[in-house]
């Protein structure tokens, strides 16, 4: 059987009308039949009561004079009542005086106690005491069948059924005509909806035929369709645009791939999500990989590098920032070679990343050279350090003993001897300073650094205290701006400042030296400047002065070892900074150097 929910609405309406009509009529009919049955029973009881009373009254004489014949004649008059099954007259002692039976099978029941009417099975039993002058003289018992009742019920029932049948037919005909009022707008709506979903044409509209809720529904449906239609066309337009943009990107990608094939370099491209979608011929050839499953950069990166490498790549993709990474790639012969991989995102007109383009450049030899150079430099430094360290002792001996000779044997020497001894003494002192500066220089390269924030102003104060005597001698003035906090070891900063200031005191004119220290922000770093009013530097020598033992002046007036600025450069560069000078001869010089503004990793033992 089909589920009722699935039946079309028009059929549903007919069924509902039919069911309700039939049910209502049936209920009403049943009610009528039931009420009639009850009323009829009551009527029957009243009738029967009257009948038994009359008969009982009529038989008092027969009872009083014990006359069965008369009694039987009286009872025989009951024949007119066809529903009387039988009747019996009992004497006071319970014996039967007379009986009447419609059918011969009737037997008198034992006389009941008391009067009244009892329903027994398919008949009623009425009993009535016959009373003469207030005294009971006998009893009448009368049995009445209920055929009449069931006949009546049958009659009424068939009448009700007939009415129900006729009404159902009428209801069916009426509802068949009337269902169209509701069902046709609904089916129209359904047809429109089906047409829309089958054809995808949102231009279809349902026809509004009524002003009721169904009409409202149709109206809303049409409004909804209009809304969908406009959204659909927007969506289609957007999709088409997107498709065009995608095709454009694809075309660009293909063009780029074509170009990349002709390049000597290893080239790859990636989707916006970082997934590599192309390696050029050179890449494949270099790595010796082929086939789809092994054509993956992750297979050729050195196992020690791969973890951090993937992480860095994902970070770059997520941030949309250019990717720059040094790692080892396995060549086709199985050897791992250092590569520098660069990748940059390419953006479309809307600023979204459309693809990544990257290259892998082999830097293995360069890297090896660097390492060799570093090793050589470290050896050299080690050598210089131990050499200057070991030289200190004999040089100090030269200085001490030349001093001793000068003091004790002064009178034994002639003027030439005294002069030679002076030269010897002076040479020893210079040698000692030279060696100690050399030591400082090499130390600046190798010592471990602990970096904390220091106040450059404080460091300047300590520096000036250390130089107090030299400043007094030269009658110099040192001024400064407010100086910032910088991330540099205090010893290193003092070393740099002390070197620069003592240079300024040293290379002076006849004027008393005037030195000013200032600071300015320069990107992520502070730029400190030391300006003087000294003799200045010829621009030609701007670079040379930072070399070891590069002295411009061999004049006795300007003593020094020629290592100070080299130490400064070494220290500053160690912090990733830069040192340079700007000057015009005769107008003084300004030394600039940059220092980190924030804590950052400082690699030790750089060149």
């Amino acid at each position, binding site marked *: 059987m089909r589920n009722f929910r699935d039946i079309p609405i028009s059929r549903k309406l007919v069924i509902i009308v039919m069911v309700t009509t039939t049910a209502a009529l049936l209920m009403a009919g049943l009610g009528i039949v039931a009420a009639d049955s009850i009323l009829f029973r009551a009527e029957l009881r009243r009738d029967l009561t009257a009948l038994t009373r009359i008969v009982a*009254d*009529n038989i*008092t*004489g*027969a009872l*009083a*004079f*014990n*006359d*069965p014949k*008369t009694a039987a*004649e*009286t009872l025989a008059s009951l024949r007119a009542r066809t529903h009387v099954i039988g009747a019996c007259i009992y*004497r*006071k*002692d319970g*014996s039967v*005086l007379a009986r009447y039976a419609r059918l011969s099978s009737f037997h008198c029941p034992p006389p009941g106690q008391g009067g009244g009417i009892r329903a027994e099975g398919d008949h009623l039993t009425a009993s009535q005491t016959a009373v*003469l*002058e*207030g*005294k009971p*003289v006998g009893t009448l018992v009368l049995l009445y069948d209920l055929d009449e009742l069931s006949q009546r019920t049958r009659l009424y029932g068939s009448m009700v059924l007939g009415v129900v049948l006729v009404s159902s037919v009428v209801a069916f005909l009426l509802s068949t005509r009337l269902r169209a009022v509701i069902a046709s707008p609904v089916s129209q709506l359904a047809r429109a909806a089906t047409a829309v979903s089958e054809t995808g044409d949102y231009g279809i509209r349902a026809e509004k035929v009524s002003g009721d809720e169904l009409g409202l529904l149709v109206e809303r449906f049409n409004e909804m369709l209009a809304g969908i239609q406009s959204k659909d066309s927007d969506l289609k337009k957007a999709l088409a645009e997107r498709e065009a943009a995608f095709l454009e990107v694809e075309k660009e990608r293909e063009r780029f791939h074509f170009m990349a094939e002709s390049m000597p370099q290893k080239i790859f491209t990636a989707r916006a999500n970082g997934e590599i979608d192309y390696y050029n011929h050179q890449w494949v050839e270099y790595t010796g990989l082929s086939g789809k499953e092994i054509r993956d950069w992750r297979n050729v990166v050195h196992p020690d590098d791969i973890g951090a490498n993937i992480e860095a790549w994902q970070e770059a993709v997520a941030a949309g920032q250019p990717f720059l990474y040094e790692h080892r790639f396995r060549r086709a012969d199985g050897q791992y070679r250092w590569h520098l991989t660069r990748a940059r995102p390419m953006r479309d007109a809307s600023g979204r990343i459309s693809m990544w383009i990257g290259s892998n450049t082999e830097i293995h030899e360069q890297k090896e050279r660097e390492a060799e150079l570093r090793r050589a430099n470290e050896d050299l430094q080690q050598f210089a350090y131990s050499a200057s360290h070991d030289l200190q002792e004999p040089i100090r001996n030269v200085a001490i003993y030349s001093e001793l000779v000068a003091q004790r044997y002064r009178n034994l020497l002639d003027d030439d001897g005294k002069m030679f001894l002076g030269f010897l003494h002076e040479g020893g002192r210079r040698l000692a300073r030279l060696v100690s500066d050399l030591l400082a220089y090499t130390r600046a390269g190798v010592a471990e650094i602990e970096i904390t924030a220091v106040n450059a102003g404080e460091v300047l104060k300590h520096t000036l205290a250390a130089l107090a005597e030299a400043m007094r001698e030269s009658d110099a003035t040192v001024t400064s701006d407010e100086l910032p906090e910088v991330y540099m070891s205090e010893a290193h900063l003092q070393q740099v400042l002390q070197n620069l200031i003592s240079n300024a005191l040293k290379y002076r004119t006849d004027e008393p030296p005037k030195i000013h220290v200032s600071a300015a922000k320069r990107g992520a770093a502070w730029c400190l400047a030391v300006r003087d009013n000294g003799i200045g530097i010829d621009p030609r020598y701007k670079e040379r002065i930072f070399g070891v033992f590069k002295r411009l002046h061999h004049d006795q007036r300007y003593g020094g070892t020629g290592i100070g600025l080299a130490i400064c450069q070494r220290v500053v560069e160690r912090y990733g900074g830069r040192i340079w000078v700007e000057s015009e001869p005769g107008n003084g010089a300004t030394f600039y150097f940059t220092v980190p503004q924030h804590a950052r990793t400082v690699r030790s033992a750089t060149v």
Partner: protein
Amino acid sequence: MGPVAGWLRNKLRMRLGLICLIASAAVGQIADQTVEYQVKAAFLLNFAKFVEWPPNVFAAADSPVAICVLGKDPFGQALDEVVHGETVGSRRLVVQRISKVPAPRMCQVVFAGSGEKDLPEVLSSLGRGVLAVGEGDKFLRDGGMIAMVVENRRVRFDVNQTATANAGLNLSSRLLTVARSVKN
């Protein structure tokens, strides 16, 4: 005397013995004279119940209905026992035995046995308002109103309605339907 009659006699002592007697009579077993008169005594009482007297035949509003046995009494104790405690309407029933024609308003029912002499004279002198009950086929011809007869060993009765109407008495139709014959 049969065993049934002996059993009945014992029962007669009881107040409701009458009904048993009628039941016995219905079977048609009139064993002897005694039983016959016991039935007749009951009939006599019942006649009184189906008769409507005009009010002026009673001495007072609460005067009893008197059943008078004229001359020889054939009932013995049976009549007294049957009548004892019975009423007609609001009036009690009493039994009196008389030897001559009663005075007006003294008796409402007069029973004259078949042995009475000069019955026609006696009956005609009874006056209005008195129900004359007797026995035998001849009683009605003598001017009686209700005559009890034995037929097929059963007690029946005939009614002379002209006589009762002349006496101003109204007999119930229920009595008439039970009568063997009604003479108009």
